[in-house]
């Protein structure tokens, strides 16, 4: 048993950083799972290059994984790491500027060779030259100790042993923060079931790391972070892409529709294809199409046949799918299009996050082509937004674009499991009978005769006798759906399609404002993945005495019906976005409200501290009356 000191902490931010080939994402992922099972609240930020293996030891090759865990509600992956694990000089150099003075750095000294140091422009090792003296530095020869610990594995080459260094680091951090390792051991056993020697080596390295922490004098204190108090329930840790996949499956189940995914691989959306491809036992059909256009085309074909057609992509792919989405607008069939946004334009920053496809989603098609647009606000919310997207698509027979992003897609958080039976009932009714009579009194089917309430047209699927009909992208006559070039009809149909989408606002929840004292004059309004950073910033600002209200949009088209009324209630409205002000543009145009746009396109989520400053400045500009009584 360890006789070392154990200190309690309320929160910790750890960043694992190394070369792309060092297994940092796996290490971070495992540490996260261990932390989730311990009951901490958490939020993660994987950050990796687009190259699979950038040149070894270079700055572009650095891959990192940041995890924020606490004994209380966590909203972001944390602005600045308390602990940096740097597996090589590049990892140290790339991440040092994010570290506050006093942070802990664990460096793998084995990699701090002259050659590796010079690759990133260090003339001398920063571990030795005193430049890190305002940090707590733990130099650990991670690689050689790991190799030493595997001395008995005579079948393994030195290179193979070196590969276990990430497990050694994980073991060390597990000791340092008192994380149980059973989950990781079980994970390794499953992963290396066919490779018993590799399995044993990884397990040995993991335990060696743990034991190293316990025995070495370099680490005098270990830490504990108590479980967070969370609402009663059963939880799991989930990334946005997995939550979105599960949401689609659950929604299809509730809608009693077979799920069909047509998709083309693209970062950071591909994990949805991978996840759903593994769910055939739930009746899920997936097709890796020849291109983005075929992916959405096949999904639309499946929808025409009465399945729930889904396609997944990122910004460049959404551009390619535009024409087919326009066809779906014209055909008025359900279609789910998930855009996991990344940095743009063009190929942009494939592995980095951004919110710059909002206007593309709303307007990126020829003609007046309205579609519903929704956006999840957290990784777990990707589940709920998927269910909501399916509800809208099937009720209104419309394409729905889901705007997630790289941050939500790869980031994770604890998710309180819903009960499938308690999800909304989104059963679909197909047309089975003629819905009109012709001038001779014979029953006929009019494919564009609308439901008076939703303005949705009937979904009459092939195989239904008596309802044979043709649909297409040419403008259709109202009600009959026959080809029509009539000017008045086109004007009428264009307005009808718009009115149908606008009408969705009748069935979505009003925009809720969080304003505890009800006396704020500044509103911070966000959409999508900025929810965490904005909420954390609002918390910081309020703690500093600012009166500030917060609201967050999950529906971007249409907006909740009360949006304009909410905006007009505040003297100043700040809209932070990871683009150059796309939501701000929409809100100004639609509601004639003077929005203050705060933007950042660095490929990374906002920092809470940065946004808190923006809020504080805005509140201060309105005078002292807008600060809370700070005497208490």
């Amino acid at each position: 048993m360890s006789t070392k000191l154990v200190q309690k902490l309320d929160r910790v931010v750890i960043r694992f950083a190394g070369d792309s080939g060092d297994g940092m994402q796996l290490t971070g992922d495992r540490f996260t799972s261990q932390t989730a099972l311990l009951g901490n609240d958490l939020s993660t930020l994987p950050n990796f290059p687009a190259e699979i293996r950038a040149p070894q030891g270079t700055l572009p090759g650095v891959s990192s994984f940041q995890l924020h865990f606490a004994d209380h509600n966590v909203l972001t992956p944390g602005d600045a790491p308390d602990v940096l694990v740097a597996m090589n000089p590049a990892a140290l150099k790339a991440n040092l500027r994010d570290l506050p003075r006093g942070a802990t750095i664990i460096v793998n000294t084995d990699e701090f060779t002259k050659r590796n140091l010079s690759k990133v422009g260090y003339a001398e090792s920063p571990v030795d030259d005193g430049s890190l003296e305002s940090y707590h530095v733990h130099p650990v020869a991670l690689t050689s100790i790991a190799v030493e610990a595997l001395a008995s594995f005579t079948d393994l080459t030195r290179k193979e042993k070196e590969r276990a260094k990430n497990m050694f680091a994980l073991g060390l951090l597990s000791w340092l923060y008192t994380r149980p390792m059973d989950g990781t051991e079980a994970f390794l056993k499953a992963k290396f079931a066919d490779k018993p020697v590799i399995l044993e080596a990884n397990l040995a390295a993991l335990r060696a790391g743990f034991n190293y922490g316990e025995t070495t004098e370099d680490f005098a204190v270990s830490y504990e972070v108590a479980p967070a108090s969370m609402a009663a329930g059963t939880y799991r840790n989930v990334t946005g892409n997995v939550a979105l996949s599960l949401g689609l499956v659950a929604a299809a189940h509730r809608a009693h529709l077979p799920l069909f995914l047509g998709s083309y691989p693209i970062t950071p959306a591909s994990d949805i294809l991978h996840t759903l491809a593994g769910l055939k036992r739930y009746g899920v059909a997936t097709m890796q199409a020849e291109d983005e256009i075929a992916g959405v085309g096949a999904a639309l074909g499946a929808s025409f046949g009465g399945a729930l057609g889904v396609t997944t992509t990122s910004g460049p792919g959404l551009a390619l799918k535009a024409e087919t989405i326009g066809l779906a607008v014209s055909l008025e069939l359900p279609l789910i299009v998930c855009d996991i946004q990344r940095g743009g334009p063009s190929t942009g920053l494939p592995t980095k996050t951004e919110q710059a496809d909002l206007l593309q989603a709303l307007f990126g098609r020829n003609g007046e082509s309205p579609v519903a647009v929704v956006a999840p606000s957290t990784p777990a919310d990707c589940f709920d937004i998927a269910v909501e997207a399916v509800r809208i698509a099937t009720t209104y027979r419309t394409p729905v674009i889901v705007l997630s992003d790289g941050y939500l897609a790869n980031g994770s958080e604890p998710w309180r499991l819903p009960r499938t039976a308690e999800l909304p009932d989104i059963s679909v009714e197909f047309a089975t009978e003629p819905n009109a009579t012709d001038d001779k009194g014979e029953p006929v089917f009019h494919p564009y005769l609308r439901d008076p309430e939703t303005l949705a047209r009937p979904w009459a699927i092939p195989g239904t006798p008596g309802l044979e009909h043709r649909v297409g992208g040419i403008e259709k006559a109202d009600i009959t759906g026959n080809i029509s070039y009539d000017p008045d009809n086109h004007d009428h149909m264009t307005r009808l399609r718009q009115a149908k989408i606008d009408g969705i606002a009748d069935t979505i929840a009003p925009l809720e404002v969080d304003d505890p004292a009800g006396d704020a004059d500044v509103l911070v309004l966000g959409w999508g993945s900025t929810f965490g950073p904005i909420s954390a910033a609002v918390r910081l600002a309020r703690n500093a005495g600012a009166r500030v209200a917060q609201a967050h949009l999950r529906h971007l088209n249409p907006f909740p019906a009360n949006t304009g009324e909410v905006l007009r209630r505040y003297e100043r409205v700040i809209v932070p976005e990871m683009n150059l002000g796309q939501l701000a543009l929409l809100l100004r145009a639609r509601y004639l409200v003077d929005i203050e746009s705060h933007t950042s396109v660095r490929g990374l989520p906002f920092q809470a501290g940065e946004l808190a400053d923006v809020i504080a400045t805005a509140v201060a500009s309105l005078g002292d009356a807008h600060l809370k009584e700070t005497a208490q």
Partner: protein
Amino acid sequence: MTTDLPVDLGMPLSSPGATGTTGVPRLADGTALTKKDFTSDQEVRWCPGCGDYAILAAVQGFLPELGLKRENIVFVSGIGCSSRFPYYLDTYGMHSIHGRAPAIATGLAATREDLSVWVVTGDGDALSIGGNHLIHALRRNVNLKILLFNNEIYGLTKGQYSPTSHVGQVTKSTPLGSLDTPFNPVSLALGAEASFVARTMDSDRQHLTSVLRAAAEHRGSALVEIYQNCPIFNDGVFDVLKDRTEAAARILHLTDGEEVSAGDNVVVRDDSGSLAVVPRADADPARIMRHDASAQDPSAAFALSRLDSPDLGHVPMGVFRNVQRPTYDDALREQISSARTNEITDADIDALLAGRDTWTVGTPAGS
């Protein structure tokens, strides 16, 4: 009230003997549909004299022969003159967007085994803007019947050259003659691993119908190239094949088990494996080619497709290739049905959502 899909994703993989319409509901015995049942109430709006009229009449006349329920037949098209086809057939139909019909039809066929799915396309739609979807539908061997109307010109956009126009062809967009080497649709389809490839002509109702019959029978992708006359922008391009005397000398009829010949000429194989058309009198009888559409090796079919020439000196007509191999849509359904044991319940979804690593806070609701 909810209506479940009339589709069972759990259907077993069709047997090796399955035809193109296996799994599609048939009319009750003693009932039959007529050409009129497949004629929609829409006015046909092709130019007078367009070859599309003859193809439409042939298709409408042929469909009753399938004995299928009309509501289980779907025609999907892209953009172009030919792609207006679905509007004139009283089946389910979709007039989609340029080049995408094979992709859309793939999603439909993959999820609905109970449908007979047909794609109508043209040389611009299928071979230019939609080339990628065509070759991938063929390599996947989706159970689609693809009718490619080839008139070697863009009609709907009023007379630009197409990917099958011949080199030197003067059109609105090539006033000094086309520079592009054309595609041979049959060669292209064979190169894309098509399991069924045929060629026929708009004006030969009997031959066209026989090819449609063979295509419908085939389980998997069937590519049928139909020479079609555009009277406005490329009139008479296939006229030599419509003159009885000329046709007899030029058309190499492909009939299984029979010699490939046209008039006094026969097709012979030389030492290198290439094919040539020679006078019968000069041919070594041992080298005269006998057609075998079911040969697994596509080399002979490909060699036949290369006998074409821009002057239509010799044109093979008929079924070049007709082989059985697993279809994408059957295999996808098979993967699903073998992974799935029974009806998915709420509890199954609950278990899926929970995954492997869960933890409980407080007293979970309902426990």
